[in-house]
């Protein structure tokens, strides 16, 4: 049975920086949980607190029901994959992987079996006698993963494990990590600043900023229902407007957008009455059509001028000027547009979300 991890009010201060600010959350047994945030947001510190390299100034850490707050790293049976892999350059691949097993006084033929198993798992058979410096980045990454997995840790910790790989390899390894995690069903905590990586790999994730956890949820929840402006802007692309709540019915609200000078309809999450709001629409929810050729049934329709366009392959990225606002939207790749042309842009009332202004 996999292990559950619970953080209670975990706080850590370094000099003048609050690296972790009252973090409380729970990682379910066997899930792949990600801490996502910009650099310096405290995600690595949180991971290091779980690994036992740091102790929190306040708060507690639990593995299942066991309080491990002040347990040494070598008493926790976690295994970490470091951003720089931290492979020992003076040991072969085999010795690197066998290190943890030897410490556990496992007989040498059992070690041999397990190393063979784990090398098959990470698809690195036959490289046992190489030294780390003789391996490519991707292979080193797999060795680091193998070294962590072979000791059958309670929790697998991954600290930006893919950030040193090139873009193509990163996607490949991302799938690989997910496959292995699925296969072993080991509780895994993953740290990254790459939102795509976090969205594609995680069962659930926590978005962090300035030491605080802003939102915890599945990738879908985070993407479709961001609960703060930071989350909305950090994950995916968004158009943001300031506005006023004019009127609200049960499901939808009427919002006056300052920059556009019009009233639009949308969803408002926060039930508290709030005069000033921030309205968010994602570019992919906006339909772009030529004047007079409109077929969409969207409630919110605006008229604007194409200010800038960029061909990005499967679509065209536009910036459409509507009064004081410049709205990012995507148009189908074959739509014939020119700069300065007037277009209609529209979005449904379900795709506009209003958040309280802070």
């Amino acid at each position, binding site marked *: 049975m996999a292990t559950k991890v619970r953080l209670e009010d975990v706080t850590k201060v370094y000099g003048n920086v609050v690296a972790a600010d009252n973090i409380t959350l729970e990682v379910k047994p066997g899930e792949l949980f990600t801490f996502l945030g910009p650099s310096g947001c405290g995600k690595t510190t949180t991971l290091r607190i779980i690994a036992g*390299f740091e102790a929190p100034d306040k708060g507690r850490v639990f593995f299942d029901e066991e309080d491990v707050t002040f347990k040494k790293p070598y008493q926790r049976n*976690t295994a970490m994959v470091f951003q720089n892999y931290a492979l020992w350059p003076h040991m072969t691949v085999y010795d690197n992987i066998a290190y943890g097993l030897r410490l556990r006084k496992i007989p040498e033929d059992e070690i041999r079996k397990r190393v063979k198993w784990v090398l098959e798992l990470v698809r690195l058979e036959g490289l046992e006698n190489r030294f780390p410096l003789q391996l490519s980045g991707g292979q080193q990454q797999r060795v680091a993963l193998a070294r962590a997995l072979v000791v059958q840790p309670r929790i697998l910790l991954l600290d930006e494990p893919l950030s040193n790989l090139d873009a193509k390899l990163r996607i490949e390894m991302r799938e690989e990590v997910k496959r292995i995690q699925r296969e072993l069903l080991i509780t895994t905590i993953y740290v990254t600043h790459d939102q795509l990586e976090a969205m594609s790999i995680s069962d659930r994730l926590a978005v962090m900023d300035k030491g605080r956890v802003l939102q915890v949820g599945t990738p879908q929840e985070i993407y479709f229902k961001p609960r703060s402006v930071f989350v909305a802007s950090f994950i995916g692309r968004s158009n943001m407007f300031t506005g006023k709540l004019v009127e609200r019915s049960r499901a939808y609200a009427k919002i006056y957008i300052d920059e556009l000078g019009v009233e639009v309809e949308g969803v408002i999450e926060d039930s508290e009455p709030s005069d000033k709001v921030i309205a968010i629409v994602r570019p992919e929810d906006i339909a772009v059509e030529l004047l007079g050729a409109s077929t969409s049934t969207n409630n919110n329709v605006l008229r604007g001028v194409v200010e800038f366009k960029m061909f990005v392959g499967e679509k065209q990225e536009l910036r459409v000027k509507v009064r004081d606002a410049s709205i990012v939207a995507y148009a189908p790749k074959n739509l014939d547009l020119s700069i300065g042309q007037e277009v209609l842009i529209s979005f449904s009332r379900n795709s506009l979300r209003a958040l309280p202004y802070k």
Partner: protein
Amino acid sequence: MRTYSPRDLIIVGLMLMLLEYMFMQLNLGALQKSTLDLLLFLGALWLAAMLIVEERFDPYRIIYSFSWSFIVVVSITYIFLALALQLSGVARSIVYLLLPLALTALAGLVKVKAVEPLIQGRSIKSSLGRIPISRRLQLSLYRLDRVMIAFIAISLAILVAFLITPVLSIFQYSILTPSGEPWYHNFKVIFSDNLYVRKIFIGEPKPWEFIRRPDGTLELVVTGVNYGVLVNSITNAVIVTVVATALGVLVAFALARYDFYGKTFLRVLAVVPLFVTPFINSYIVKLIFGTGGPISIITEALFGFKVRIESLAGVALAQIMAFYPIVYLNAYSSFISIDPSMEEQAENLGSKSWRLFFTITLPLALPGIAAGSILVLIFSLEDLGAPIVFNEHNLMSYKIYSSLIGEAGVVTPEIAALGVVLIALSVLGFLVIRSYVSMRAYAMVSRGGRWHPRTRKLSVVGHVLIYLLLLPLIVFTALPQIGVILMAFNVMALDRFSINPAGFTTKYVVEAFTGGSPLAADIPMHVRNTLTYAITAVLIATVLSIIIAYVVSRARIKYVVELLDVLATIPIAIPGLVIAIGYYYYLSTLSSWGLEWSRGTPLEGLFIAINPIYGELGFQAWIALITAFVVRRLPYTARSVFAGFQQVHENLEEAALNLGASRLKTISTVILPLIVTNIVSGTLIGFIYTSTEVSTSVTLGAFNKQQAPVTYYMMYIYKAGTTEAYRYAAAVGLLLIAIQLIVVIVVTLVLKQRYAFIGI
């Protein structure tokens, strides 16, 4: 609102200076004068505080400006010296010119370094609420484990017992004063007595003079002026440092940035003066600048007179020649460590030649150069070889030395006070430079060669300049070491710089090794002593270095780490003579205290063995010498080991801890194997500095001559004045050169480590 710049401070200073000058012209009583002085001083202080507090002055304008920070350091030194030496007249009013700048800079430094972080830290901590004491205790215990605690305890215990306490005992003795005198009596003597701070009278011998010799030849004798022991030492050290720095930077720049034929040869030759051959090399310098030397031959041919350089002037010359390669090595590695793109960017923007050098290259290389310069300053202050050879008694180092080995057998408290002044000068200089360097440590001094350094082909004119100026300079500074070798093989005359290849014989070298002549009979014994002590000391120092470097690089307890870091580095700044006096006081006190309660027990022997007062009757000099060597040479091994720890990413260690390895297991299986080359090279470098150590060897060693190291013997031969024996001293010098050469070759070629004097 307008903010103030350093330039404004100079204008204010000018006004203060004029005021002060006017006051001096008025005929005022002493009391009124000192009141006005005080008022001016308080005015400057108030100005500095106001500017900083009101935020109308940004301290970073000084800290990050190359020229302003340099001016400030010079100003502070000037003010300190001018006040200590009680200068008068214009020299004194200049103090008031510099005062606002210096005070504002100091106040700004305090604000930036201490006050600001404290205030910020406070506000963050208070926003989080209090952390209970029990939790804090738990936190600091968590950061430590048994191994870490043991490491900290061992290293602190050793450093307290063998470094801090001996040095502190000097302070204790320095305030022992004749009854009825205040505690600072000894210091007052040092800062006012004619012996230490001398008034110069009209009609004294000039610094240089033409003398007609009996045989009718004309001779220019350069001696320098004796301003008293204290002033001489300071002036000499400053002159040596400035000249050595200028030379070192010049040579380093030429060698680092230009390609020309024979460059490798010059690079090798330029470090030759670093081969330590105590006393005998200074003797060769004396011959070079004597009436039979090459300089005299040239001047006689050109101008018709001979040149003889003696006393203080001779000491300064010998030290410049011996120490400038320290700056050269540091500057060289700084120059080639500068990322070429930094200079290319500046050139790209239109900067070139002098402007490029002074705005980009020099500021980037400055931390390395400053580190070298401060070493020169310290080495010059504590140097014994040149003063003994030039028979110059009016230097602090000589005073301390002569009173330690004097026949009286008692070291007066005045000498302790002199030791305190010496240590204050060097440690203050060291700490100032250290914090100055670390504040501007944006240059990457450590490992060069990650990129291809910028070099330029030299033009024909450039080649001519190099061969006309640089080549003679480098060859000339290498002459003492070459002379030592020539003298050992009987190729050079004993009393003049003349070479006679026909005299070649290996007799002296062989006899020095076998002891097969009355004059050389004791040499093998002293060589054995040196080797035994050096090996033992350096092995202990290595283990201690590993322990300290581990704590410093890994323990996350700020104050302990900083303390250990400073303690492991500071012995560089503590003159060996100060260690010697400290050990003298410390060991004799410890011994008399120990003998009291150990009477009749086996421990009694130990307490007799450590007491220098018992001399040949029972003092085991080796105990004191080995401990002193460990402490003195610790920085050299520690820096090398520490560099190793810095290269090993902490993650490598955490990966092992994470997989279940304990702290000791991690150290032995992961860390030590990775830094073994650093350890070995640290040990080797420590070994050469230990085997060539002079100041404690010749002082503590003198208390039991049978157990003295070989450098003591070299001094002994020199003092005995049997010129024939100089050849044996030269032979020992040859042996020392051989040891150093082997180590340098092993370190650079086999271990691939850079051989350089440590940066701070």
